[in-house]
C-alpha cells in the first residue's frame, strides 16, 4: 500500500522552478537551511541556487553586485534573501540599496496578519502595506546650503506614483482584498503628496471593483493603534511606508515574524526577512526562521504554488499555536533545528 500511495503522488508533477537563494550574514545561513529543509519536507518544486551578493567594484569603478548573482536573478526572476550586514566604513553602499537599484525593486509589500498563538495586545490584524521604494524622502539628495542649514529633497514623480498605485490595485485584486487606502500628507505637502494622490485616484478609476479611500498619515497612525481591523491595503510613498510598515510589524509581534516582498520591474521579485543579522546568536542554533519562512510562503503564492504555501503556513502557525516547540524569542526554549523539525513533521502529516 505504501508503494501504491507513492505512485499516486507522482501524478501531480509540478514543474521545478529555480529560485535564487541569498542566505545573507549572521543567522542568515541557518535560517535559510531551515527553510530549505521545510520546503523539502513539503515537496515544494523549488530548485535553490545559492548566491552571494557582497558588493564588488565593477569595471567602471562603480560598486555592483557580483555578476553571477545578477545573472542567476535575471534568469530565475524570483529571489529569497536572508538578512544582510550593514557595512560601516566598508566603502560601499548597503547591499540592500544595491539590490534595489540593480533590479529596480519599486514596491515593498508587507502583509501583516496576526499570528494566532503569538500573543500581542492587538488581535485580528489583517492588512498589507505597499510602499513605494525608489524615490520620495529617501532619494538621498541632501545639501548643506550654508553652514548650519541642511536641505533634504523629497522627490515624487508621476511615473513612480502611477506604477506603485497600479501595483497596489493589482495586488488587491489578485489577493481578494476589498479596499485600497492611499496614505498621504497632502494638506502640508500640497504639490508632492498631491501628485501622488492624483495618480492614485486616476488608477482607481480603472479598478472600480475595489474601494479607494484617502487618509492623512496622522489619522492612519491614530486609528491604527486603536483599531487596526479597519485597514485593508495601504499604499504610500517611501518614508510613510517605512514608518507604517514597521508600526504594523510591531502590532503583530515584531520583525522576527514579519514577511516582506520586493517587486521589481521586469517581473523580478525578491522576498526577504526584514530583521537584522543578530550576530550575537549566529551559529548557536537559536535563531527563529519564521520571518524568512513566511516570506518564502509569500514567494510560493507569488509563483502560484498556493497548495504548498498553504500547507507550510498552516504547519508553521500550528507549531506556534501549540506552544510546545518554540524558539527563545517566541517564548520557548527550543533550538532552531528542533523548531524546524517540528514544522517539517507537521508538513508531512498534512500530506
Amino acid at each position, binding site marked *: 500500500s505504501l508503494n501504491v500511495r507513492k505512485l499516486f503522488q507522482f501524478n501531480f508533477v509540478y514543474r521545478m522552478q529555480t529560485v535564487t537563494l541569498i542566505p545573507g550574514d549572521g543567522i542568515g545561513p541557518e535560517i535559510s537551511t531551515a527553510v530549505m529543509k521545510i520546503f523539502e519536507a513539503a515537496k515544494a518544486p523549488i530548485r535553490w541556487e545559492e548566491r552571494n551578493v557582497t558588493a564588488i567594484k565593477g569595471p567602471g569603478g562603480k560598486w555592483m553586485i557580483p555578476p553571477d548573482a545578477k545573472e542567476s536573478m535575471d534568469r530565475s526572476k524570483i529571489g529569497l534573501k536572508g538578512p544582510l550586514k550593514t557595512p560601516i566604513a566598508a566603502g560601499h553602499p548597503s547591499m540592500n540599496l544595491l539590490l534595489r537599484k540593480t533590479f529596480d525593486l519599486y514596491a515593498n509589500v508587507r502583509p501583516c496578519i496576526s499570528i494566532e498563538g503569538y500573543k*500581542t*495586545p*492587538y488581535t485580528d490584524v489583517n492588512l498589507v502595506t505597499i510602499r513605494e521604494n525608489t524615490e520620495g*524622502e*529617501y532619494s*538621498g539628495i*541632501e*545639501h*548643506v546650503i550654508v*553652514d*548650519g*542649514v*541642511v*536641505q*533634504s*529633497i*523629497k*522627490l*515624487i*514623480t*508621476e*511615473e513612480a506614483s502611477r506604477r506603485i498605485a497600479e501595483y497596489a490595485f493589482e495586488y488587491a485584486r489578485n489577493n481578494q482584498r476589498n479596499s485600497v487606502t492611499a496614505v498621504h*500628507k*497632502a*494638506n*502640508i*505637502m*500640497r*504639490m*508632492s503628496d*498631491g*501628485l501622488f*494622490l492624483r495618480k492614485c485616484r486616476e488608477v482607481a478609476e480603472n479598478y472600480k471593483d475595489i474601494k479607494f479611500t484617502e487618509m492623512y*498619515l*496622522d*489619522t492612519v*497612525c*491614530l*486609528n*491604527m*493603534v*486603536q483599531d487596526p481591523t479597519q485597514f485593508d491595503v495601504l499604499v504610500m510613498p517611501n*518614508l510613510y511606508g*517605512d*514608518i*507604517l*510598515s*514597521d*508600526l504594523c*510589524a*510591531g*502590532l503583530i509581534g*515584531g*520583525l522576527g515574524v514579519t514577511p516582506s516582498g520586493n517587486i521589481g520591474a521586469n517581473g523580478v521579485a525578491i522576498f526577504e526577512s526584514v530583521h537584522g543579522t543578530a550576530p550575537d546568536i549566529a551559529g548557536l542554533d537559536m535563531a527563529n526562521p519564521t520571518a524568512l519562512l513566511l516570506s518564502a510562503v509569500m514567494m510560493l503564492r507569488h509563483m502560484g504554488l498556493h497548495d504548498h504555501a498553504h500547507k507550510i503556513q498552516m504547519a508553521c502557525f500550528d507549531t506556534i499555536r501549540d506552544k510546545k516547540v518554540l524558539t527563545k524569542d517566541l517564548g520557548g526554549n527550543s533550538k532552531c533545528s528542533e523548531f524546524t523539525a517540528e514544522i517539517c513533521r507537521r508538513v508531512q502529516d498534512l500530506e
Partner: protein
Amino acid sequence: MVAICCGLDKLQNHQCWPLCCFAINVLTLMLQPPPAKYGGRHTVTLIPGDGIGPELLGHVREVFRFSCVPVDFEVVNVNSALETEVDINNAITAIRRNGVALKGNIETKHTMPPSVKSRNNVLRTSLDLYANVMHCQSLPGVQTRHKNIDIMIIRENTEGEYSSLEHESVSGVVESLKIITRNNSLRIADYAFRLAREKGRRRVTAVHKANIMKLGDGLFLQCCREVASGYPDITFDSMIVDNTTMQLVSKPQQFDVMVMPNLYGNVVSNVCAGLVGGPGLVPGANYGRDYAVFETATRNTGKSIADRNIANPTAMLLASCMMLDHLKLFDYASSIRNAVLTTMNETRLHTADIGGQGTTSEVVQSVMRIIQSKGQLTAEL
C-alpha cells in the same frame, strides 16, 4: 539682553551666537505671560476653526463663564474656503496683540491651488511657535490595551518637512524641501532638556532617521547630543523612527521624554494619542519665545462628528487648563482640570469615542456640577 535680542538676525552668523542662544534661553525661562489688562482680566484670542472646533470652544467659554474665570475671549474667525490670507493675518495680529490663543483646527481644502498653504502651518511659522508639547498619560478611567504610559513629546514645530517649499522642476517631477537648521535644532533640544529637568524627568530620547538622511537628521542628532552634554543628570539616547513606532506599540512604558523634528513628531504624537485612548483626550500646546497657542494635541477637524453633540470635550478643556496655567491662573486651572478628570475617571461619563454613550453637553454639565460642588464661586448652573 534686550539689545542683544533686537539684533538677533544680524547675530545669527556671529561667533558669539551660542552665548546669545544662552541669553535668549534665560529670557524664555523668565517669559512672563502677557500682563492682565482692564481690571485684572486677561484677553485671549479664540480661533474657532472648522468641524468640532466651534462647538468645543463654545463649551470652554461656557465653563469659563460658569467658573468666573477672569479671561475674555477675542474671537477671530478664519474662513478656510477663501483663498486670501486676510483672515489668518487678522488672527496672527490678534495673537500678537494678546500673546495667548486657544484654537480649533482650520481645515485645508485640497481643491484649492497648492499656493494656498495650510493656515495652521502659516500661524505656527509666523509666530515662530517652535515647540509643540504634548503630555500623554494613561487615564485610569479609559480602557486601553497598554497601561502606565507617561510620555512627554516635544516636537519641532516650524521647519523640517513642513517648510512648504515645493516646486515642479520638470513636468511630472515634484521636489519638496525638508529644511533642518542648526539654530532651530539647538533651540528645540534645549527646550526639551529644560522641560525634562523642570518636570523631574530622567531620560530624553531623540527620534530620527539619520541612517538614511545623514546630513539633515544627522545635524538634528548632533545638536541634541551637544545640548545633552550640558545636562549630565539626564540620560540621553536616540532611536530610529521606525523602530520607535514598533517599540511604542509593544512597550510604550519604556519612553520618558521624546524630542524630534516635525514630521516624526506628527507620527509619534498621533501614535501616542491613540495608545492612551484617542484624539479626544490629549491637549497640546505650541510655545514660542513670545506667544503661546493651545489646542488639541492631534489637531483634528472632526468634520464627520461636527454639530452632533458627540465630540469629546476633554482635550479642549484640558488645553484651556494648560492655557490658564500659562496665564498663572493656577487655581482656576486645577479646579477645571480636576472636574474633567473626575468626570472621566470616577463618574466615568464617557463619550462615544472612548466607548461610552454620553453626549458632549452631558460631560460639560457634569464638569460644571463638580466645580460647583467644590464650593468655588460660580454662576448659575
